[in-house]
């Protein structure tokens, strides 16, 4: 058994210093497209290459809706490509709570060093779920920040939902949400959970989990890297600021007629 002790020590400490210090290691983020002002003669044809409607033209600018970007990189190729920026502090406070409901504030400092998280897979492709799972690996080690996964929603403060919200998971998701004690927060992770991405809406799938349960924090990306999910947990406990999206990106209103209007 000594071999495990010795090899464990020999593996050195790999854990990131984030959030005390930004982690700039290569390969930790898939990046995100940034909108731009349209110069004279630039028709903004790149918008038409976007398969999910994440790019729109308005007021002589190209706008990016982070909720809909699925990282197909079509706007990153070609002569008129958009610039993609690295980084991962993408978690934003949801703007889409039903009318009449206030946006929820962060959880109190009582949760700062002990936050229990239940993950529900509502039809995820496996990538977002896999990135959530990576939080437990030595590089991210979410335990050091007081974040713990729990197998039961009754012990959880946070519900992380991945996947577009399939019809056959609807009942299970509602039950898991109801079983959470209050105060509780819901973090929707990934483009599918935020907008249905390439899957929804359809007869089998919703256009994002907020049509099933209320969502407090949104993490865009397909999939968002572990650092982005870590950022969301920090935002939920008031230990980090939500994303300040650079000029040219936007958080569209709930998809549907309103979004089309603003994108026109």
């Amino acid at each position, binding site marked *: 058994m000594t071999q495990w002790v010795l090899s464990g020590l020999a593996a050195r400490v790999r854990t990131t210093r984030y959030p005390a210090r930004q982690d700039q290691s290569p390969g930790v983020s898939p990046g995100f497209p940034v909108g731009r002002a349209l110069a004279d003669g630039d028709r903004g044809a790149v918008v038409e290459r976007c398969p999910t409607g994440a790019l729109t033209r308005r007021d002589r600018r190209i706008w990016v809706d982070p909720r809909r970007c699925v990282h197909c990189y079509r706007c990153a190729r070609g002569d008129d490509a958009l610039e993609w920026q690295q980084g991962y502090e993408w978690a934003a406070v949801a703007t889409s709570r039903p009318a009449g409901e206030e946006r929820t504030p962060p959880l109190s400092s009582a949760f700062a060093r002990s936050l229990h998280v239940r993950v529900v897979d509502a039809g995820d492709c*496996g990538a977002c779920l896999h990135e959530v799972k990576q939080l437990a*690996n030595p590089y991210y080690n979410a335990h050091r920040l007081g974040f713990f996964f729990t197998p039961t929603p009754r012990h959880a403060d946070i519900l992380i939902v991945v996947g577009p919200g*399939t019809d056959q998971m609807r009942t299970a998701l509602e039950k898991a949400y109801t079983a959470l004690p209050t105060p509780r927060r819901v973090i929707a992770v990934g483009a599918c959970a935020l907008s249905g991405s390439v899957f929804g809406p359809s007869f089998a799938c919703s256009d994002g989990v907020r049509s099933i349960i209320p969502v407090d924090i949104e993490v865009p990306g397909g999939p968002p890297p572990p650092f982005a999910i870590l950022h969301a947990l920090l935002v939920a406990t008031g230990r980090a600021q939500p994303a300040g999206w650079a000029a040219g990106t936007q958080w569209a209103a709930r998809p549907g007629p309103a979004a089309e209007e603003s994108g026109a």
Partner: protein
Amino acid sequence: MEAAATVASIPEEWSTRIDVHQDRQGRRYEVECRPDTLQDLCAWIVQTLDYSFAGLVVEQQSGEWSLRYLFHAADARSGRIDVLLRQPLSQVHFPSISGSLYAADWHEREAEDLFEIAFDGHPRLGDFILHDDAWQEGLAPMRKDFNGREPPALRAPNPNWRPDRIVHAPGVFGMPIGPVYSSTAESAHFLLETVGEDVIRVVPRFFYKYRAVEKIAEGRPAEDALLLAERFNGITAFAHGLAFAQALEAIGGIEVPQRALALRVLLAELERLRHHTGAIQEICESTALVVAASQAAILEEELLRLSGELTGHRYLYGLLACGGLSRDLDDAALRAATVRARGILQQLQALEKRLVRTSSFLDRLEQVGIVTEEEARACGVVGPIARASGLARDLRVALPYCGYGGYGFEVPKEAEGDGYARLRILCAEARQSVRIMEQALASLPAGPVRAADIRPCAGAALGWTEAPVGAAFHWLRVDSRGAVVRYRIIPPSFANWHVFHLAAEAFAFQDFPIILASFGLSVAENDR
């Protein structure tokens, strides 16, 4: 035995037509038959010719049903056989072949559920993909007249659903697991019926994650359907995207440039290496060997970062395109990545050496979760699980694609079929993957990475890859505008979950999570 002679020796009364096609994808026989001879013919192809059943493709075409049963041989020379059965649309009864070909069992259940067609003689139809507690009977979403874009009016979810108990005896305890269970497990339901510690029946229930990928692909431009192929199972995105792209290229007769072929091989093997490292990590974690699990997790994260640095995306999204790759990769970066992959493999091998010296770890895997060779053969198991049970089937050898025929590698095989054999297969395949990556790099030609002339072209074709979990088949039919008419995915997890309950029965309750981990299967891939 020469396959041409054997296929030609199909008794005349069984078939109405035999065509032979020879193209870039290899040799393919198309055998049309009548309903009354289907079962004998399919059983003969598997038992006498020793072909493997790959899957069933149901198509609703103008005026008729077309059922295509796909078979492939174990060696490159013999190629594929498609058995075709056609009937008018009004005739919705088909003979079931799963009595003599058990591998077709789930395929028939799926077709019955989604098309509302009947397979006469099948003992267990109904409640499969569309759960009875969420959908009303009579819904046929895969039929052409069903609008997949809107929620159906017929919906009455029943929150009080309980699994059916099969074993009725004194002392039997039913333990339902899922669909929300463990800390980061995918959604699926398993009913374990136990007597004391022994699990005597396992009844899995899947398709909680059914996103109807095959239905929503219909009508979309093929290049957008590629996004679905990549994203329905993100863990092995490249393998499925590649199978789809190959189907599309076969339809259009597009020749992929040599550089793109070599890069595809390199990236597919990088994905396999990362997947297998993750699977080994899961096995370590399931046995609560924390240090080993952390060490494997470090290697997995390093491979994810390596993929991200090399291609821009940690799961290799957005690289594949019809006719090649959407962008070229830098030679120096590829060389550096391959050297790093070799280094990570060496650490994985050191970890394997420590694992096989740890008796408490081996005790949990050896003689646990056994799939015998007969079971594997009967259920049509593919990939590492089949190879751990003595079936050395690998599409890279059986139906070479992307020039795999020119690479030197071995297909590892073990006989025991237990969890330990599966672990050894994963480790051995990781070694072969790095070997192939190095060969692809060494022979990497210069040149374009995407075919120049790509036009939409009507037609249908099958694309396939040996995905990390096993053989993946994508059947695609597009119209002259390049829009998808029918898309059928036959993922390896669909074949392998079929045998899972046999492996998990007759073992102790606490072995269940370990057997689950040693299977290393994806639910998203199965559910689609």
